[in-house]
């Protein structure tokens, strides 16, 4: 296999003295292949932007190494790294027009006038900013500035394109439209891109792989489908997915030839031993104290099952979100039709063994996903 476009080796970031300051990024290692789109997904302060800025060269790497296009770059100045970046705060040059902002790098590279005009025109059309090309940054809206900043980054030919919250200011329809176009643009040109976002829809739609970060630690780095189906730990499981995964502390025991998952409030989910493959069963029993997780879409109302009491029933126009009291907590179900359930209505819910995610209660690490062992 050829050398990866970007490789981070145990990269640490401390703000302040090493080992004493704020530990913003903790031993993050990951690789990005040429032509891939990667999303760094996490909530505010999770270290995703710090990671991006270390790759760009705006923040010093406290420990670890960064290889980009076969070169070790962590001590190179930003100008020498050959990366392009769209900034969260847009950072357009206020003294020149939007057109000149976008064309800046191309002009600096002494590209022919006609070629510059052609490429600016193409990227402006893609991002729907053709009509504001001759305006100045201070006279256009935040969303327009953001697209101009994105255009300025995408137009460049760089080894790596870094996009920091590139669509945060856009209205939903435009965001949906541009997501597709941007992905096509990047793929068509074979660019490699890292996208920082806290919007999982955006990460799912754009990225080939998602790196979920929390507390400066890379929690999981996998394809969107894999993250959804096989979350590596409790954090990823509950962070990715809308509405979030239902989780309940539980203990697992074998009794009378059946597998009992005891939830709080005296609730007991009972499965046949055969519902789980032997290795999974062994791990479940060995762990004893676990947290079970089930996606709201996978919870079903059934004739037999565990009792729950409806506390809210919301029809969103295309699906119902039903929240119910369950096992000392709350469980959320998603149904595709309008459900005639008033508050306080008793229901019985069933969870199929294949929809069950088990996590170790102590470490949060995944034990199993349905029939498969984790890890």
């Amino acid at each position: 296999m050829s050398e990866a476009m970007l490789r981070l080796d145990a990269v640490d970031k401390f703000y302040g003295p090493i080992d004493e300051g704020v530990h913003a990024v903790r031993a993050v290692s990951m690789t990005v292949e040429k032509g891939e789109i990667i999303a760094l997904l996490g909530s505010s302060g999770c270290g995703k932007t710090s990671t991006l800025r270390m790759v760009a060269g705006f923040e010093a790497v406290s420990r670890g190494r960064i290889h980009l296009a076969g070169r070790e770059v962590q001590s190179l100045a930003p100008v020498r790294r050959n990366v392009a970046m769209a900034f969260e705060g847009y950072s357009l040059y206020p003294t020149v027009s939007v057109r000149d902002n976008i064309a800046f790098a191309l002009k600096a590279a002494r590209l022919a006038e006609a070629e510059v005009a052609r490429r600016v025109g193409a990227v402006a059309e893609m991002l729907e900013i053709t009509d504001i090309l001759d305006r100045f940054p201070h006279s256009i809206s935040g969303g327009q500035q953001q697209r101009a900043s994105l255009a300025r980054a995408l137009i460049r030919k760089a080894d790596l394109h870094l996009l920091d919250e590139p669509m945060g200011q856009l209205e939903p329809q435009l965001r949906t439209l541009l997501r597709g176009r941007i992905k096509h643009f990047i793929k068509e040109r074979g660019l490699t891109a890292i996208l920082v976002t806290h919007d999982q829809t955006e990460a799912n739609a754009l990225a080939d792989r998602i790196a979920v970060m929390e507390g400066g630690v890379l929690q999981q780095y996998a394809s969107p489908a894999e993250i959804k189906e096989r979350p590596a730990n409790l954090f990823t499981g509950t962070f990715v997915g809308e509405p979030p995964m239902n989780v309940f502390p539980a203990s697992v025991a074998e009794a009378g030839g059946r597998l009992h998952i005891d939830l709080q409030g005296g609730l007991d989910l009972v499965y046949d031993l055969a519902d789980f493959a032997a290795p999974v069963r062994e791990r479940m029993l060995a762990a004893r104290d676990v947290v079970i997780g089930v996606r709201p879409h996978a919870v079903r109302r059934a004739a037999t099952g565990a009792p729950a009491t409806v506390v809210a029933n919301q029809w969103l126009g295309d699906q119902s979100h039903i929240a119910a009291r369950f096992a000392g907590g709350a469980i959320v179900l998603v149904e595709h039709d309008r459900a005639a359930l008033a508050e306080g209505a008793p229901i019985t819910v069933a969870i199929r063994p294949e929809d069950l995610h088990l996590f170790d209660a102590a470490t949060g690490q995944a034990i199993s996903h349905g029939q498969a062992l984790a890890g």
Partner: protein
Amino acid sequence: MHATPTIERILRGTAIALVCLFFMFPIAWIMLMSIQTNETILRVPPSVVFAPTFENYQALITGKLETAAGTLEINFMRNLWNSLLLSTSSVALGLVLGVPAAYAFARLKFRGSEDIAFTLLSFRFAPPLLVLLPLTIYFQQLGLANTYGGLIWVYQLIVLPLILWIVRGYFEDIPADIEYAYRIAGHGFWATFRRIALPLAGPGIAAAGLLAFIFAWNNFVFALVLASADKQPVTVGALAFVTASGIQYGQVAAGIVLSIAPTFALALYAQRYLVEGLSLGAVKG
């Protein structure tokens, strides 16, 4: 319904008029004095009816002061020129030294940066008289006393901290990402400083330069002690009008009008520039 706004308008108009009167009256009065003779100025009661005369200005420009005790040689135009030379050179040197320093203090975090910046600011704390005596001795030993170079150097005590602290604030207000965006697009540190940081801090640099110019222009005590007659600025030169035969109020007034004219004009011009600079800043979200 309409009564309140009318009263409000009248009150506001009166208040503005009072403020204008308060600030403009001395200037207007000085200008009137400058075109009168000592006799009409000292009339009791004072009157605004008089025959205007330009002999005060004439005396200043020709350098011959007619007093009751005879003709006195003064060198007011020379003083004016000294003021211009000293203030302009000091501000120019202050900008050359202060702007890059301000940028460093704003952008680079280095050991002791805050301490150094504070030390420079603390030059403004001490009364100038405190440092004058040792300075005089040093300057005489170094041969800097009574030289333009020496004065310009001492003027840095006034000019440099001012420029440093004002411009630093402007640099800090420029989002660092704008510079990063420029650097990542293939430009070095110096190109970024010259092409992005300097133009964006332009209004701030202009404001600091202007303020420093006015402070330098108004300085009295450094030049009084460290320079002799031919190097002294107008502030010190105006002392010449206190003559043995009395104070020449007319000439003093004309001298003041001439000496505030440059700073007055500069302030009027830059006031517009300042407002523009502050409202059209780089930081529109």
